[in-house]
């Protein structure tokens, strides 16, 4: 690939392969001459690929929900069973927890154990609050005989929202593990990478929840 210089004489910064000065030169790591990229970058990039595949998994559940949303089999539709109030509180919990999770990674950068614990604990409590509300909603539906077996619509609804809830539960276990590991081992580079991946995971769950509350709950209430 030939590099086309800009009119100002600068090298295109988006050019692939070894980069010329002033972009760190061909000996920059991850660009050929400089050897492999640092482990921090490789690990986070690999986890990013995993998260994208997780998003693809959710997109399958979204697609099946969109196809089955009207297959209510004379049972309840979204309009009958969704309440905007509890969804608003769940959304607030997750948005705030994304912010506190970001605060925790900043505290890690600043090597402040106290702020790390505080931010992670708040994130955990907000996540638990979210799970409590969601469990309440599911129990309420099942007790009214509107369980996942009632109609294809409810099957799709429970699989989609339940899959997200399962991810949040796993995320909370991961969060507690990270707090314990930072407590036991400190901010070692390997622990740092794990916390970093956890933060990516948690932010991604929030993105999926944005799609769920808009396209499942609010769309259901409207129609």
């Amino acid at each position, binding site marked *: 690939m030939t590099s086309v210089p800009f009119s100002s004489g600068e090298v295109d910064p988006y050019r692939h392969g070894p980069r010329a000065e002033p972009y760190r030169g061909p000996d920059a790591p991850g660009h050929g001459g400089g050897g492999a990229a640092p482990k921090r970058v490789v690990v986070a990039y690999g986890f990013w690929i995993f998260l*994208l595949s997780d998003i693809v998994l959710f997109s399958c559940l979204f*697609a*099946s929900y969109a*196809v089955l949303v009207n297959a209510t089999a004379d049972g309840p539709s979204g309009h009958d069973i969704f309440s*905007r109030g509890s969804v608003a509180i769940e959304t607030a919990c997750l948005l705030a927890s994304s912010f506190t999770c970001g605060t925790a990674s*900043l505290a890690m950068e600043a090597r402040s154990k106290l702020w790390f614990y505080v931010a992670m604990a708040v994130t955990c409590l907000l996540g638990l609050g979210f799970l409590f509300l969601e469990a309440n909603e599911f129990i309420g539906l099942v007790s009214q005989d509107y369980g996942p077996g009632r109609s294809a619509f409810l099957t799709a609804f429970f699989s989609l929202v339940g899959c997200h809830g399962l991810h949040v539960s796993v995320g909370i276990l991961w969060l507690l593990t990270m707090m314990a590991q930072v407590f036991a081992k400190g901010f070692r580079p390997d622990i740092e990478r794990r916390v970093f991946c956890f933060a990516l995971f948690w932010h991604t769950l929030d993105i999926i929840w944005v799609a769920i509350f808009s396209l499942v709950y609010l769309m259901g*209430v*409207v*129609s």
Partner: protein
Amino acid sequence: MTGHDAHGQDWDRAPGEEYINGLGMGQAFALYGVGLFLAVLLTAVSFYISGTGIVWKPSIPVALVVLAIAQMGIHVVFFLHITTGPENTNNVMALGFGILIVLLIVVGSVWIMNHMNHSMLPMQQIMQMQR
């Protein structure tokens, strides 16, 4: 752009890294605050228009989709720190491929299944044919 990030060792950036062009800790924190503010704003608008008659009714689902996509963009930029800079090319490429697959799955399924629903005989006629 200096080409040096906060760690001073490489140019490529991992997804989610906070330091953008060597921002300080306070600025990085403020950036999360801006993201939270924008996300809350878009969420509030979504909830608001789904509950009032202020918007023309058939346009509400479209508005909800647009607001959701906008909010996901806010999350990607302010929380996952995926930018369009040259140090983020790999991350953006992966994201672009992910979006392509998601669109293929969702739009393809909805399109095909609607089409099949459309060309299916009405239920009563099927029942009559079975007699």
